[in-house]
């Protein structure tokens, strides 16, 4: 099978649109609400989930024929927990500020339903390479929503993007005020709702 056959392409692009983990299946909402008050943690969280989903998918796919059926969820959890711990340690060593901001949510990737869902639904039945593509696709789909929501919340809530001030001082002089509501988790829920709405209205096509 060619590396980028039509089938594999679908595996990769489906989670970005039709089977989008957040927009289509409405999975992984909890962390999407928690870490998106600023853009930087949202990007790091998106990357972390992408890497972990991809590699967990590959590992599970490689050992899928040896996994005893009765303890397959346990095995999946062990693999995911190991990967999450490694990523969390790496973040602490190389991006301490971000790891403090993400706090418990890095650890909570273990319970992210996107991961378990992909392992159980895809990696257990498919070869490593399609599983890798599936993991990257789902991770990027998740990251995409996080980045959109994070960008909107930081721009409207703090007037900056990635910590750089975007809205000029002149606007504040004219009485513009940052919307404090945007930094609260409730607004993330509403924004995710808006993103789902736009997605369903303009991008989602029934097969």
């Amino acid at each position, binding site marked *: 099978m060619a590396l980028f056959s039509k089938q594999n392409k679908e595996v990769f692009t489906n989670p970005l649109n039709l089977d989008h983990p957040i927009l289509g299946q409405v999975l992984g909402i909890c962390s999407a609400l*928690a870490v998106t*008050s600023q853009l930087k943690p949202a990007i790091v969280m998106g990357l972390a989930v992408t890497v972990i989903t991809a590699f967990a998918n590959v590992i599970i796919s490689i050992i899928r024929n*040896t*996994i*005893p*059926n*009765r*303890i397959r969820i*346990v*095995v999946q959890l*062990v*693999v995911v*927990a*190991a990967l999450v*711990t*490694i990523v969390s*340690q*790496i973040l*602490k*060593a*190389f991006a*301490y500020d971000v790891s*403090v901001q993400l*706090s*418990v949510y890095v650890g909570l990737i273990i319970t992210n339903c996107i991961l378990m869902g992909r392992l159980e639904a895809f990696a257990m039945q498919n070869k490593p390479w399609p599983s890798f593509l599936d993991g990257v696709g789902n991770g990027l789909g998740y990251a995409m929503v996080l980045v959109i929501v994070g960008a909107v919340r930081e721009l409207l809530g703090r007037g900056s993007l990635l910590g750089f001030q975007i809205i000029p001082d002149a606007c504040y002089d004219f009485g513009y005020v940052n919307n404090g509501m945007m*930094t*609260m*988790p409730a607004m993330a829920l509403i924004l995710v709702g808006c993103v789902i709405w736009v997605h369903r209205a303009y991008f989602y096509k029934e097969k």
Partner: protein
Amino acid sequence: MKLNTNSNAYIIIYSAILVVIVAFLLAFVYQALKPMQDANVALDVKKQILYSLNIRDLDGSAAEAKYAEVVKAEKEIDGQKVYECQIDGKDILVASLKGMGLWGGISGYIAINGDDTVYGAYFNHESETAGLGAEIKDSQAWQEKFIGKKIYDADGNVVLSVVKKVESPDTQVDCVTGATLTSNGVDAMIKDCLKNVKKSKEE
């Protein structure tokens, strides 16, 4: 030969091997990254101390250099760390604080002038609610409310407090709205940790 992957023996051996592999892997990663993590934590402590001294815009090596320039000595009183600092020729004592918030531990640093008023304060938390209790860390404006408050009364008791209704603005700080329990934690932490500092100063 086809293995019976559902036999009990297979399951037990399989899980044992898996767990051992993962344990070795994690131990290796932990050991390999430990020095860098420790360096990050140490730098973070230094930055927090600088925050309490109202120096908030430094990062990395700049913070390191400033810390070395400002902090003259480090003492320990009953397990509580105290830092002797000097800024613009003024002697300032930074006391570390440790206490309980609503959901987990809270900590902080409070910088004290020679005349026992607050020079600056910084608080940190482990798991307070974002937007409410977490404001003790996130809101610079709230931390700056402490500046200039009196800490001790004539008898050496701690009178600096965090209250709902400020009656004497010399010693009291308005608590964070919606975070009464976290604010109470800060109040108790200040009372608890600062009483030793006074004693040690007199000695």
